[in-house]
């Protein structure tokens, strides 16, 4: 009889819901889990709880009126999304951007990337159970938000870029403030290293957890730190340089292991690389206009379809613009990196323990409104 009971217990799997209401880190994601005890047999993410119809709005708004939407898609690195959309429309309409504006774009985008990685860092360690690094990360992040607020006017959902440039110039207090901030953050990084990265508990929670092979990343189209943590040397800024990224000297951190620890290390190293880019950009910042001489009044790209990709904090963000020559897009496709990154969760989490699956999900750096658009 004992054997019979054992058999029944082993064969029983139950379905459980994770979400859609989480502690507010990821957003509204629901994962249908079929569990065998503590092990996941099958995980299926269910999306759509924050579907805000961005692509339909792309067809209903003029080109310029869509700009506020870009910041709301991935609100943590909103400037990269601004950049992707604006660069795609500039490519379609053949608008030239003055050099100073390009440098300003790079500086603000990289600052935004640092703030996004800092928030990811805090939220990720919070998921694993450590509350303190979140407060330190938010402290650093508030400094960046102050800097960006003095230039763009908003704290979170920026709408700073315009077709052909940016709309506000920076002043000396921004430059000195940024340099101060970089000096301060450089001093703080060893503290994060000692507190978190070298922490035995974190290493045990992340090492060899959630391996993603190169082939899996390729078949699912994963980009960004998820791919770079699996040994794929792919970063849009070096692979197909856009804006003025070819002028800067920076490295792409690539780790071969493919586990959550590798993805963690990629993002921590990227913070340092972003600081290098900002320093070089501040040194080389040219004088000049921030909008083209011939002001862009009405944008009417030629008929056809165009594609542009930028490196957002989470991967390669692509915009496909199909234009029919009017002042509204005919079709606007937004290729969000987290969409492809999350699609491999079903396959990657098979047979894992539930807390390990949460560590994997945290290391994928999800922002759900970006997936649902």
């Amino acid at each position, binding site marked *: 009889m004992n054997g019979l009971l054992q058999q029944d217990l082993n064969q029983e799997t139950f379905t459980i819901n994770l979400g*859609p*209401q*989480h*502690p*507010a880190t990821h*957003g*509204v994601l629901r994962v249908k889990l079929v569990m065998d005890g503590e092990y996941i047999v099958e995980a299926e993410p269910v999306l*759509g*709880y*924050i*579907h*805000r*119809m961005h692509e*339909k*709005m792309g067809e*209903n*708004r003029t080109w310029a009126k869509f700009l*506020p*939407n870009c910041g*709301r898609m991935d*609100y*943590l690195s909103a400037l990269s999304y601004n950049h992707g959309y604006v660069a795609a429309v500039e490519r379609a309409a053949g608008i030239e951007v003055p050099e100073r504006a390009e440098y300003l774009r790079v500086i603000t985008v990289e600052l935004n990337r640092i703030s996004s990685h800092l*928030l990811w860092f805090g939220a990720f360690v919070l998921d694993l159970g450590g509350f303190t690094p*979140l*407060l330190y990360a*938010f*402290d650093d*992040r*508030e400094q960046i938000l102050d800097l960006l607020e003095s230039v763009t006017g908003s*704290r*979170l*959902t920026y709408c700073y870029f315009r077709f052909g440039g940016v709309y506000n110039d920076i002043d000396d207090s921004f430059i000195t403030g940024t340099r101060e901030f970089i000096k301060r953050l450089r001093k703080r990084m060893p503290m994060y290293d000692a507190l978190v990265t070298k922490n035995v508990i974190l290493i045990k929670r992340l090492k060899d957890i959630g391996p993603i092979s190169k082939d899996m990343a390729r078949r699912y189209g994963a980009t960004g730190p998820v791919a770079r943590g699996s040994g794929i040397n792919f970063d849009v800024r070096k692979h197909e340089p856009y804006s003025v990224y070819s002028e800067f000297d920076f490295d792409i951190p690539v780790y071969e292991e493919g586990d959550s620890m590798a993805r963690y290390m990629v993002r921590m190293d990227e913070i340092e690389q972003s600081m290098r880019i900002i320093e070089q950009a501040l040194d080389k910042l040219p004088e000049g206009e921030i909008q083209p001489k011939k002001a862009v009044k009405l944008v009417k790209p030629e008929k056809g379809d165009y594609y542009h990709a930028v490196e957002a904090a989470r991967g390669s963000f692509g915009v496909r613009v199909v234009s029919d020559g009017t002042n509204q897009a005919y079709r606007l496709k937004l290729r969000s990196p987290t969409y492809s990154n999350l699609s491999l969760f079903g396959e990657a989490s098979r047979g894992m323990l539930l807390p390990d699956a949460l560590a994997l999900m945290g290391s994928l750096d999800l922002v759900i*409104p970006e997936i649902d658009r």
Partner: protein
Amino acid sequence: MTFGLACCAIEMMATGASRFDLARFGAEVFRPSPRQCDVMIVAGTISKKMEPAVKTLYDQMPEPKWVIAMGNCAISGGPFVFEGQYGIVEGADKFLPVDVYIPGCPPRPEALIEGILELEEKVTGFRRWPRVEAK
């Protein structure tokens, strides 16, 4: 209960962090479970797919309970209302009784603190922090 749906959730987290520090006002305890909460802060856009879940969570909260609608999306749909929209509910007050509205996209952490103090005044009749008058 933090009902952090979208961008406003980040400002809510920033309010709870060290710079703006909601703990000063005794409102630090954010519990994801509805059974232990008095106030539901609806922060973010409510989509039609999510609406039944929000209603369920509200119903699960024990009386007395209040609702704060944070951000333009929770007040009236926000920037996502356009003609022919098919996916979002235009405001939390379409199906929930809202007590305090905090406008902004996203509202600054100071605005959220002000909203919580307003709610406290509505509940207790006593405002503990002087109101800042515009000159």
